[in-house]
Structures are given as C-alpha cells and as structure tokens.
C-alpha cells in the first residue's frame, strides 16, 4: 500500500505495479513551515514534490500564479528542464513526498505513457490526456438511462382498424411505429410491416392492422440503463423496444435514437433547419441544437470541434430565419452578421444574441423596423436570450447603413473609453451569415484601416488583458467553500486574455479570420507568433474552454457549478500549464504593445 501518492490517478496510474512500488520506495517526505521556500527561482529541483498536506503557492516574479493542495504535484517543467521559472512557497504547514529527480527521469524515459505527462510541451501533454478521457466517456454513456433518450410517442391503434388508418396516423404524427391494442394484448406495427403486407403479401389497405402486428414485444422501463436496452435489442434482435412505466406506455425506443445518443445527430438537425418552411418548424429544429452538445462531449469531442458544429448549426438557423423574414425591400441590400463569440464560432452553450445588420443604402424605414423586430423576437422565441448590451438587429445602432457604421469607426478607435473598445472588439469578430457578404468585408477593411493609423489605439485596446489577475484561489478549498464558481475564473483568468490578446494581434495584422484558433494558426503562418507558442495557446484555450463547457453542462444538469476541488490532480496540473501559457501571452503583449505606457 502506498501512502505517498495515489497510484490510481493520473499520471501515476500509468505506472506498472513494480514501477509504482520502486518510486514509492525511493521517496522521502519533507516538512515545510509556513513561508518556507520549497523551490527557489532558477533553482534545480531535487525532484517532484507531491503534496501530502498543506497548501503551496506558486509564484513567478512575485506574482501569485496559483495555489496547490493535497495530491497536487510540482514542478514537472522544472524537473524535466533542470530549472523552473516559478518559485514554490509553503503557505501553511506542508508535508510533501519527494520523488528524486533521477528516479523519475528513468520512469519518464522508460514508460512513454507516463512520460507524456511530463513533456514541456503542453500540446503533447493534452493529447496524452485526451486518450485517457475515452475510457471514462464510454462509462458515462453506459450509466445513462432510457429516459434520457429521445423516444417515439406511444400512439395506440385498435387491431380492428384498417392498414390504411395506421399509415395515416404514422404520417400525421411523423412516427414510423404504432402500438396495436388487441383486447388485452399489445403489439407493435411499423411502416415497413404495412408496406410488406400490401406489396409482398397481397393484402389490401382495408385489412385489419391486427393481422400484421407483432405481439412479441420487448419492454424496458424508463429507469433502465441504456446499456440494458442495447443488450435487449441485440439479444432479441429487435430494432424497437417499448418503454413502459408500470402499466403505462411511455414511448417507443428505436435503435437509431439509441445510436444518435452515442453519436449525436447534428446532420439531421442541420437538414431540419434547411428544410424548415415555417417559423414553428424552424423553432423545433432550433430547440434541438443545444441537445447536440452533450453527446459530442460524451464522445470526448473537444471544445474547438463542438463549437464549430454548434456554430455551423446556429448560422444555418440565422440564415434560414433571415430567408423566411426578409422583406423584398431589404433583399440584396443588406448583410446579416453575428458578432462576439458567435461571430468567432466559439459558442457552444447558448449565451445571448450578438447580431446586426449592415445595409448597403438607406431602405424603407417601416419595412426595416418590422424586420428588425420580427427577427430579434423570433430568436428570443427560439431560446436565444436578448443581449444585455443591446447588440442586436432590433437596435438601430447595430442595424444601419455601411456608411453610418464606417462614420462611427473613427470615434470607436479614438475615444479612450470602454464602450468604444468593446464595440471594436465585438465588430472585429463579426461574421456574415446571410445577404451580401462584401458589405461586412468592406466595413472591416475600413476598421482595420482606421486602426492602423492610430498606433496608440492598440495599446489601449490590448490593455484589457491586464484587467483580470490570474485566478488566484482557484484551488484554494477555503475560498471555494465561499461559493465561488470556477466558470468565471476560467473566463477572466484564461479564456478572455487569450481571445482578446489574439484579437488585438489579428486586428493589427488585418486578418480576415474571426475564430481564435484560426487566427492563431494564421498569426503563426505570417510569422507574428512562433508556431509552437501559437499551438500551445490554441491547446490551452481549447482545454480551458472544454473545462468551462463541461462545467456549464454540469450546471445545467445539477444546478450547481463544477468545483475545481473535484478536478483530478492531472486536470489541475494542466490548468496551471494553461495559465502559464496565458501569462507568457500577457508578457509578450505587454512588450509588443508597450502596455506599461497605458
């Protein structure tokens, strides 16, 4: 038994029993009094410290980067590189198990799976982490219950009714299976049964449906695990199960819905949006977008991809709504844009509307106003909350002619207030979703043009990344008990600085890309950022966003935020790595834009 480190959690779970035992046997335990330095700046570390009790501060240039608690370990970077950039100081009485450097380096070199966690390169580390996720994802799926799945309605038809009626009901309720009541018995009939009866068996559409129903139904309860449903389908060779709670029929579970729970069905939702002919059809499709996120995350799909899929669906939805509502007076004279996180394609869980309209020329004010109100109202009905800052089509400030927009850019660029900077930020993330895209391209070009003549603007603009300190107290249990959620911390301390810092560079370079990941790739291409650093930033952003997304999903399910205390030590280590990358970006921008002047 091992009292010094938890061999069941990453990265130590990747050691063989013998390796773990040899590491344990090589460890000493060191005591540190409050305020005592454990690893000094630029000092070669004796080994890897694993906290047994107490709290340790990680500092760099006097700045507090984070707090570490029991089971956390440090400093993997310093261990591999021979010296670190951070200082580690005991905040309270602290005991650390100490794994000697040589022993650990041997394990890192001898066991690649273990070694991956200690690479200096956060990208490779996160990739190693992603592989670990897969097994736990499957487990999560298997713990879901039948009631979590999409079920077909349990519509019942009497067995004496003709085949024709069954067909009509199926069409009306848009469902391919019906329950058939035959006295006390209940059976099932599918569309395929109907067709086969008529086409292959020569029955007429007036024959009773009872003659072709199958009465050997297999039932499950809503509380059964979906793994059980899957087993029943396989065992009885059934494509459908009847879901029954007590004596009541709750619905019909089809194999396709079981599969889509595993895989999501975003392609179906996309098709539904494109084919919607009315607002209510579109509303139904809109309601299914949010449902795509969970299955995708369950499969271990990372934020970047989840956001891309969701953004694509949202944009198709906006475009379709535009098609349905746009009056002839506006056609070919405007461009519908989405801005902010939606414009960057980095919104997964729905936040608020951030959209606008660029007109090529003044149009009939009555028609315009009607469109504005209908559009924003429809989106609100679809479940997109109105934007608190009123960045919406129904706000005349955000739906006006391109000339009016451009006339304002000068003021946005030169006025040193928060609102102006915010406007530039929001607009520079804009993407066209419908109408004449060249309008947005022209407007953005004008914005970049104006900004490029105002060197002082960039410093003021980029300065916002210094508004929030790194998330101090993120791991501090005491602080957590006060009820501080981590979602805000992740956003302020990590996500915002990356997004805004990259945005500042993107505007400076006049990039067309709005997505932060694509901006990063482009910045590396044109040599504005080192390729490795650009990749590290992308990985860090993806990791922070994924954590935040999971916290948001968790909150939706349980009504409470995920607590960092529930994260694994590995996650906390990766968090620290991510914040380290954020800090490097801050330093780079501070220098690049001369932020000390502002």
């Amino acid at each position, binding site marked *: *038994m091992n*009292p*010094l480190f938890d061999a069941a959690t990453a990265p130590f779970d990747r050691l063989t029993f013998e390796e773990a035992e040899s590491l344990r*046997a*090589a*460890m*000493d*335990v*060191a*005591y*540190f*009094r409050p305020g005592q330095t454990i690893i000094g700046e630029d000092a070669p570390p004796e080994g890897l410290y694993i906290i*047994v*009790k*107490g709290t340790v501060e990680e500092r760099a240039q006097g700045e507090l980067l984070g707090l570490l608690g*029991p089971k956390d370990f440090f400093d993997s970077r310093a261990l591999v590189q021979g010296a670190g950039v951070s200082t580690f100081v005991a905040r309270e*009485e602290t*005991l650390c*198990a100490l794994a*000697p450097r040589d022993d650990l380096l041997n394990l890192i070199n001898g066991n690649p799976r273990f070694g991956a966690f200690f690479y200096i390169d956060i990208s490779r580390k996160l990739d190693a982490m992603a592989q670990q996720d897969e097994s736990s994802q499957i487990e999560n799926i298997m713990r879901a219950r039948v009631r979590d799945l999409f079920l077909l309605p349990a519509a019942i038809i009497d067995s004496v009714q003709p085949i024709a009626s069954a067909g009509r009901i199926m069409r009306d309720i848009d469902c391919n299976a019906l329950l058939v009541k035959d006295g006390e018995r209940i059976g099932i009939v599918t569309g395929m049964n109907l067709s086969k009866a008529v086409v292959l068996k020569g029955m007429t559409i007036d024959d009773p449906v009872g003659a072709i129903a199958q009465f050997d139904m297999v039932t499950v309860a809503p509380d059964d695990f979906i793994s059980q449903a899957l087993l029943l389908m396989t065992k009885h060779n059934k494509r459908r199960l009847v879901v029954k709670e007590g004596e009541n029929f709750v619905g019909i579970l089809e194999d396709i819905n079981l599969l889509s729970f595993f895989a999501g069905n975003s392609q179906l939702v996309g098709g539904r949006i494109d084919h919607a002919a009315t607002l209510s059809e579109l509303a139904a499709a809109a309601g299914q977008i949010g449902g795509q996120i969970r299955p995708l995350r369950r499969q271990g799909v990372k934020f970047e991809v989840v956001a891309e899929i969701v953004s694509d669906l949202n944009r198709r939805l906006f475009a379709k709504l535009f098609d349905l509502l746009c009056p002839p007076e506006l056609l070919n004279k405007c461009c519908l844009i989405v801005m902010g996180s939606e414009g960057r394609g980095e919104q997964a869980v729905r936040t608020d509307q951030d959209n606008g309209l660029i007109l090529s020329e003044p149009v009939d004010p009555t028609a315009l106003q009607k469109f504005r109100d209908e559009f924003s109202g429809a989106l609100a009905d679809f479940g997109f909350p109105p934007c608190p800052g009123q960045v919406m089509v129904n706000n005349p400030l955000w739906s006006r002619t391109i000339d009016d927009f451009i006339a304002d850019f000068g003021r946005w660029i030169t006025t040193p207030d928060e609102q102006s900077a915010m406007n530039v930020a929001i607009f520079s993330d804009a993407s066209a979703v419908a109408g004449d895209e060249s309008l947005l391209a022209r407007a953005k070009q004008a914005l970049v043009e104006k900004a490029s003549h105002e060197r002082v603007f960039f410093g003021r603009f980029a300065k916002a990344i210094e508004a929030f300190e790194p998330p101090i107290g993120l791991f501090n249990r005491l602080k957590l008990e006060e009820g501080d959620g981590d979602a805000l911390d992740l956003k302020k301390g990590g996500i915002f600085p990356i997004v805004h810092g990259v945005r500042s560079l993107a505007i400076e370079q006049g990039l067309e890309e709005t997505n932060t990941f694509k901006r990063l790739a482009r910045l590396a291409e044109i040599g504005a950022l080192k390729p490795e650093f650009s990749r590290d930033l992308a990985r860090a952003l993806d990791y922070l966003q994924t954590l935040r997304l999971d916290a948001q999903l968790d909150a939706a399910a349980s009504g409470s935020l995920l607590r960092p205390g529930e994260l694994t030590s590995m996650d906390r280590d990766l968090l620290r790595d991510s914040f380290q990358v954020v800090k490097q970006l801050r330093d780079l921008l501070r220098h690049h834009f001369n932020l000390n002047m502002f």
Partner: protein
Amino acid sequence: MALRWLFRAMDKATLADKRYSFLFEPGPPDEVVSIDCETTGLDRNRDEIISISAIKIRGDRILASQAFNTVVRPRCAIGPEAIKIHGLREADVANAGPIAEVLPELLRFIGGRPLMGYYIDFDIAMLDNHVAEFIGVQLPNPRIEVSRIYYERKYGDAPPGTQIDLTFAKILKDMKLPLFNQHDAFADALMTAMIYVSLMDLKERGVRISRPRHKGVGDFHGG
C-alpha cells in the same frame, strides 16, 4: 529521569555483547527514529513481533526511502484477532527470518538515536523481550512519545475537566493528515513521523492546536 540514567549506566556496564555499545552513544544530533511493530497480539509477555518498520527523521526530512522494513517469523501462532488488524497471516511470515536474525541489523540501524512512536512503550517492551535475551540489556535509547507532544500542544493549557482524546485517528485529523492503511508497520511509522515533524514545528514556533469551545460532546466516530 535520573532513575533512567542510572539504569542506563548500569546497563552499559553489564552489556553482554560489547559490539553493541554504540547503542549507548548519542546518535547524530537532530535525528530520531520513528518505529512501529506489528505483533501476534497485545500481551507483552506472551505475544511476539511479526513486522517492524523503522524510519529515520533528520531535521525536517523523513528519510522514508532508507526505511528499515522487515517481516519476522514468530515462535507462537498469530491470533485471529491480530490477523484482522494487520492482515499478516502465518503464510506471510513463514519465509521470514526469526527475530534473532533481524535484530542486529535493526540495532545498527537505530544506533543511539531516540526512538519515537505512538504508544512507544509497547513497541519497545516487545523489542526488549528479545533485545535483553540477545545483548543482555534493554534498549537504552531515549524514548519520545508522540501522543505526549500532541497532548502538550493541545491540552497543555486546558482547564480541568476538558475531554481528552488521544486516539491516533484524532491526532491525524488535528494535524490535517490523511489516514492511510493503519496497522501496516511502514504506513504507521510513516504517519507517526509525519505527525512528529508537524508537531515539532508547532512546538518550535509556539503554536497550539485549537480545541473546540464546547465541552462534553462525545465523539461517536471513534476519535
């Protein structure tokens, strides 16, 4: 204290095997040994040792990597109650050496260092059964009772009538240490060492362990 010194002096004089006179020399300053024995039962006269773990502590460092760990084959059967506690069965100790083979190495390991433990008197009494046979005297090493330091830090200034809890679990909890698998000699010696270094720092800095304000509430969790 004076009496112990006298015994020591007498013992040193009567030490049968002079090769072990180093036991009477003071060990390196700043070093103590955390020691724990698992036994066949709790009867000091009849029961025997089946495993020993000794870990040196040098200043703030617990030298766990150089620990002395051994399993001992007892001459008597292991009681079923004891097996339940430490999990060592006859089969587990069948291939181990008898205590006579183990003792010389243990004695060289501990040298003249103070022996520290939780209810250390029991462990030393168990060892003394054999040490006396072996070298003619009892272990002369100074003893440090960890629960006594804890008592002093926590209850040293307590008003009369304060309810006192010196269970191992309670001490761990107060020291904010996790409970590993207790009744494994190495884990016990290691936990005791962790308690010791933590307590010694509190003592040095004059920090007391806080007591709950209310009195008389029984602890139903067994400490």
